[in-house]
C-alpha cells in the first residue's frame, strides 16, 4: 500500500490516472501502447483504409437498420416517388425507397454505406496484395495471413448479403444466379437452394434471412477477425521495409503518442471525408430506376458490385457446348438419371484454386524456399522475382475473370463482337497468367541488374569527359552509403534440389517441389558482394587517376607551351 501513498497526484492527468489506474490498472496499458512504435510507409495505409471504411460502413449501416424493413410482405407503393406509385412490391423495396426519398439524408446514408462497402473490399484487397508482394506473410505472420484471407471472404459475404437486401430487379437476378449455381452442386445442391430460399426460388423468406446474416452474423465474424488480426499485429510488431538502420532485430518508426496517433487518427477522418465526397456527388445503385423484383424482366448490361465480378465473369467464360458436345452430363442411377451441369461446376474450380492458393501461399512458398526463419524485414518485390511473378500471374487470372463480367459492355462500347470478346478472354484466362509470370520475372531480374549497376558503378550523370588522349569517359556519381545499403542488403533464394527421403530415394513429390523451386529461383541476380564493390571502386579510381593524370599532363604541357612562347 505504500506505493499508492507515495504517489502524489499533483496534475489533472495525474488525478485521472490515479482514479483509473487504481481501479483498472490502466497504467500498464499506457506504458505498453503509449509509445509503441509503428514503421511508416505509404503502402501501410491500405489496411488502415480497410479498417476505417469498415467502421464507416458499420456506422451508416446502423442508421439504415432503423428505417429498413426486411420483409417480403406484399405492399402497394404509395410513397413519394411518383413513377412507382401503385406498383406492387415487397415491404423491403418500399422501405428502401422510403429511405431514399422520405428520410432526409437517407439517400446520402445509403450511398455512404454502399460506397464505403466497395472501398472496404477494395482496400482489403490492395492491402492483401501489399502483404503478398512484400513477403509480409512469412513466419511468424502466416496465421495472420490466414485471418486476413478469411476477412476478405467475409467481406465478400457481407457485400453480397447487403447488395441483395433492397429486393429490386438487379439484385434479385443476382440471387437467381446464386440459386442456379447452388442447384448445380451434385447431391446437395437442390437441398441447399431449398434451405436457403425456404423452398422454391424466390419464396418469401430470403430477404429476412439475408438481413440476419448481413447485420448480425457476418459483421460479428468480421469484428472478431479484425480483433484477432490487430491483436496479432501488436504481438508481432509491424514489419518494416529494408533500409539502413532497419534490422530484423529492431523496429524503427514513430511512437503512437503523439505522431502515429495523429496521423492514423487524422487518416480516419480523411477516409470518411473522401467517402462522403464520393457519396455526395456520385450516384450509386439507384434502386428506384430498377423496379421491384420480378422473375421476368432484366435489363441488358447487368453488373454485380465489383468484388463479385470475378465469380460472375468466370461463369460467363465457361463454354456450355463444345461444338455439339454438351457440358450437361446425365448419370444413370438405379432410381433414374442425375444431372451434372459441368458448365456451371467447372468454373468453380479456378475460383476455388485462387482462394485456396491464396490461403495456403505461405506454406507453398516455404516448400519451395525451405526458408523457415522469422522475417521482419520486407522484401522489395523485385528481390523476390519468383513470388512477384506468381502474384502478377494471380492478379491477371483474377482480372481476366473480373473483366469477363463486363464482356457485354466491352463489346458494346468498343463495338466488338460479343463472341470475340469472350474468345479473347478465354485465351487470356489461360495464357495471360503464364505470360505475366515470365514477363514479370524478367522485369524483376532486370530491375535487380539495374540496382547492381547502380551499386557498383553509381549513377550516370550524363557528363562526358574527353581526355586529351581521346578516351571518352562518362562521369559516374557513386551513391551514398545509405542508398548503397538499400541496394545490396538482400538475400537471394537458391533452388533446392530434390532431397532423398529416409530410404535414400527421391520421391515424385520431392521432384515436383524441386522443379517448382527451380522454376522460381534458377535465374537470379545475386546481391553485390564486398569484393565486387571493392573491385569496382578500384577500377573507378584507376579511371579517375588516368583521367586526372592525363589532364594533369596536358595542363603541364599547355603551361609549358605558354611559358615557351
Amino acid at each position, binding site marked *: 500500500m505504500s506505493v499508492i501513498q507515495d504517489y502524489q497526484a499533483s496534475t489533472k492527468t495525474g488525478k485521472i490516472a490515479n482514479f483509473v489506474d487504481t481501479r483498472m490498472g490502466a497504467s500498464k496499458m499506457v506504458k505498453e501502447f503509449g509509445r509503441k512504435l509503428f514503421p511508416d510507409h505509404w503502402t501501410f495505409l491500405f489496411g488502415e483504409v480497410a479498417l476505417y471504411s469498415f467502421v464507416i460502413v458499420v456506422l451508416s449501416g446502423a442508421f439504415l437498420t432503423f428505417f429498413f424493413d426486411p420483409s417480403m410482405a406484399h405492399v402497394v407503393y404509395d410513397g*413519394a416517388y411518383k413513377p412507382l406509385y401503385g406498383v406492387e412490391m415487397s415491404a423491403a423495396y418500399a422501405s428502401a425507397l422510403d429511405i431514399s426519398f422520405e428520410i432526409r439524408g437517407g439517400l446520402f446514408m445509403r450511398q455512404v454505406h454502399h460506397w464505403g462497402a466497395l472501398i472496404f473490399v477494395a482496400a482489403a484487397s490492395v492491402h492483401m496484395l501489399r502483404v503478398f508482394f512484400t513477403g509480409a506473410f512469412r513466419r511468424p505472420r502466416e496465421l495472420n495471413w490466414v485471418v486476413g484471407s478469411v476477412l476478405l471472404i467475409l467481406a465478400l459475404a457481407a457485400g453480397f448479403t447487403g447488395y441483395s437486401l433492397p429486393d429490386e430487379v438487379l439484385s434479385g437476378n443476382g440471387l437467381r444466379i446464386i440459386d442456379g449455381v447452388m442447384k448445380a452442386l451434385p447431391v446437395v445442391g437442390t437441398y441447399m437452394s431449398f434451405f436457403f430460399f425456404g423452398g422454391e426460388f424466390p419464396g418469401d423468406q430470403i430477404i429476412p434471412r439475408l438481413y440476419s446474416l448481413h447485420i448480425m452474423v457476418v459483421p460479428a465474424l468480421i469484428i472478431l477477425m479484425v480483433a484477432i488480426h490487430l491483436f496479432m499485429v501488436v504481438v508481432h510488431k509491424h514489419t518494416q521495409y529494408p533500409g539502413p538502420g532497419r534490422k530484423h532485430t529492431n523496429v524503427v518508426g514513430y511512437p503512437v503518442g503523439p505522431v502515429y496517433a495523429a496521423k492514423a487518427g487524422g487518416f480516419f477522418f480523411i*477516409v470518411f471525408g473522401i467517402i462522403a465526397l464520393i457519396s455526395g456527388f456520385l450516384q450509386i445503385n439507384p434502386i428506384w430506376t430498377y423496379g421491384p423484383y420480378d422473375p421476368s424482366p432484366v435489363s441488358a448490361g447487368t453488373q454485380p458490385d465489383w468484388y463479385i465480378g470475378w465469380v460472375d465473369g468466370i461463369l460467363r467464360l465457361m463454354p456450355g457446348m463444345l461444338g455439339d458436345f454438351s457440358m450437361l452430363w446425365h448419370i444413370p442411377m438405379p432410381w433414374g438419371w442425375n444431372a451434372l451441369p459441368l458448365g456451371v461446376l467447372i468454373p468453380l474450380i479456378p475460383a476455388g484454386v485462387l482462394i485456396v492458393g491464396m490461403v495456403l501461399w505461405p506454406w507453398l512458398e516455404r516448400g519451395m524456399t525451405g526458408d523457415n526463419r522469422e522475417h521482419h524485414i520486407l522484401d522489395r518485390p523485385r528481390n523476390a522475382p519468383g513470388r512477384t511473378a506468381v502474384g502478377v500471374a494471380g492478379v491477371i487470372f483474377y482480372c481476366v475473370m473480373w473483366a469477363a463480367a463486363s464482356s457485354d459492355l466491352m463489346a458494346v462500347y468498343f463495338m466488338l463482337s460479343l463472341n470475340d470478346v469472350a474468345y479473347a478472354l478465354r485465351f487470356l484466362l489461360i495464357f495471360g497468367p503464364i505470360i505475366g509470370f515470365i514477363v514479370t520475372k524478367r522485369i524483376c531480374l532486370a530491375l535487380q541488374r539495374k540496382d547492381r549497376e547502380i551499386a557498383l558503378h553509381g549513377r550516370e550523370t550524363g557528363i562526358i569527359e574527353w581526355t586529351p588522349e581521346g578516351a571518352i569517359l562518362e562521369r559516374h556519381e557513386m551513391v551514398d552509403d545509405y542508398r548503397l545499403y538499400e541496394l545490396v542488403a538482400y538475400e537471394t533464394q537458391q533452388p533446392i534440389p530434390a532431397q532423398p527421403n529416409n530410404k535414400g530415394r527421391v520421391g515424385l513429390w520431392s521432384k515436383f517441389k524441386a522443379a517448382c523451386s527451380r522454376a522460381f529461383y534458377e535465374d537470379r541476380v545475386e546481391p553485390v558482394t564486398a569484393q565486387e564493390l571493392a573491385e569496382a571502386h578500384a577500377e573507378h579510381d584507376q579511371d579517375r587517376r588516368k583521367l586526372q593524370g592525363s589532364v594533369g599532363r596536358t595542363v603541364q604541357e599547355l603551361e609549358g607551351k605558354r611559358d615557351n612562347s
Partner: protein
Amino acid sequence: MGEQRHGDPGKPGAVERAGDDSGNFAIEDPGLPPHRPRITDEDPRAAKRAERQVSFLFILSIIGTIVFFVGYFGVGQLPLDETDMGIIRLQNTLLGLGTAFAMLGIGVGIVQWGRALMPDHEWVEERESVANEEDRSDAVNMINDIADESQIKRRPLLRNTLIGALAIAPLPAVAMFRDLDNTGNQSEDPAQNFGVERMRHTMWDTGTRLVRDVTGTPIKAEDVTIGSALHVVPDGLLDMEHDKLNQKAKAVVLLMRLNPEQMQISDGREDWHVDGIVAYSKICTHVGCPIALYEQHTHHLLCPCHQSTYDLTQECKVVFGPASHPLPQLPITVDNDGYLVAQSDFQEPVGPVYWERDPRPAEERGA
C-alpha cells in the same frame, strides 16, 4: 545464405531469425540516416504559419458541418406526392459536401499538425521474440500438469464418453435448421413435400391461355407478327395473391413468330407451334436469368446475364455461351375462341439444371 536448412536440428523448437547474418552484405549497415530538421523546427515563423494552416483547416471543418445543416434543414424534405429529383440531388450533394469538409478539415488538419509540428524523429526499439522457449516449456508443463490433474488420460472411460456426448450434443442445434425449408409436410407424397418433384411442374396445363405479362390480356394468333417477341404468363397468374413470384419464376414464356419454312422441327414437336408461333421458357437453362433479348434477323435469343445464346430456328439450341442445353418449348395451340393456349405443361423441367433433374418424359423415367 548458402545453407538450405534453418533452425537447429537438435532443437526443433528453435526459430532462426533471418538477417542475423547481415555481416554478409557488401557493406556494413551504416545505421539510420541523420535526421534532417524541418523548416518548422528551425524557423518559429514557419511553425506559426503551420499552426495557422491547421486551425484554418479546423475552421473549414466547422463550416462543413454548417453546410450539412443547411442541406438538411434548408433544403428540407421532399413533399409527399411530388417527385422532384432535383431537390433530392441538391440535398444529397450538400450533405455530402458538408460531411466531406467537416471530416477532411479535421483529418487533414490533424495529419498536418502531426507532420509539421510534432517531433519527426524516428525511434528505434528492440524487437523481442514472439515467443521464448523457456515460457513455452513452462506452458507445456503446465498444460501437462493440468491434464494430469484432470486425470483425463488415466481414465479413458471418462474421456471417451465425454467425446461421445460432445460429438452428438450439437446435432439438435443442426437439426433445428430443418425448417429453413418450410415448404413441406402438407402433402401425402414425400417427394412433393420436399419440392423437388414440384420443380418439374409449372402453372401451364392443357387449355391454359397465354396472356401478356403486366396487362393480362389473352393473345390471338394474328396478333403475333413475325419479328415480335411477347412476354407471356399463364392466365390467372397475375391475379394470384400467394405464390405469384414462385409460379412466375417457372412459368414465364417468350412468344415469337417465325417463318415456318425456317424452322427445323424435330420428331414429335410438329404440332407444338401455331403457323410458326412458338413459345419457349424465358428462364435461361444456365443459372436461371430471364432471357430478355431477341435479335430478330439472326433469330437468336440472348441472356443478358452470361450471354448464353439460343437459336430459335433450331428449337433454341445453344449456339454460344455457358448454357449447355436448349430452352424447353411449351406446346401451344389455338382454342375455340381463337386465343393461344397451352397444349400441356412443359415436357421437361425449366430453368437451371439441378441434381435430380431427369429430362426424360414420365413414362421413360418410370414415374
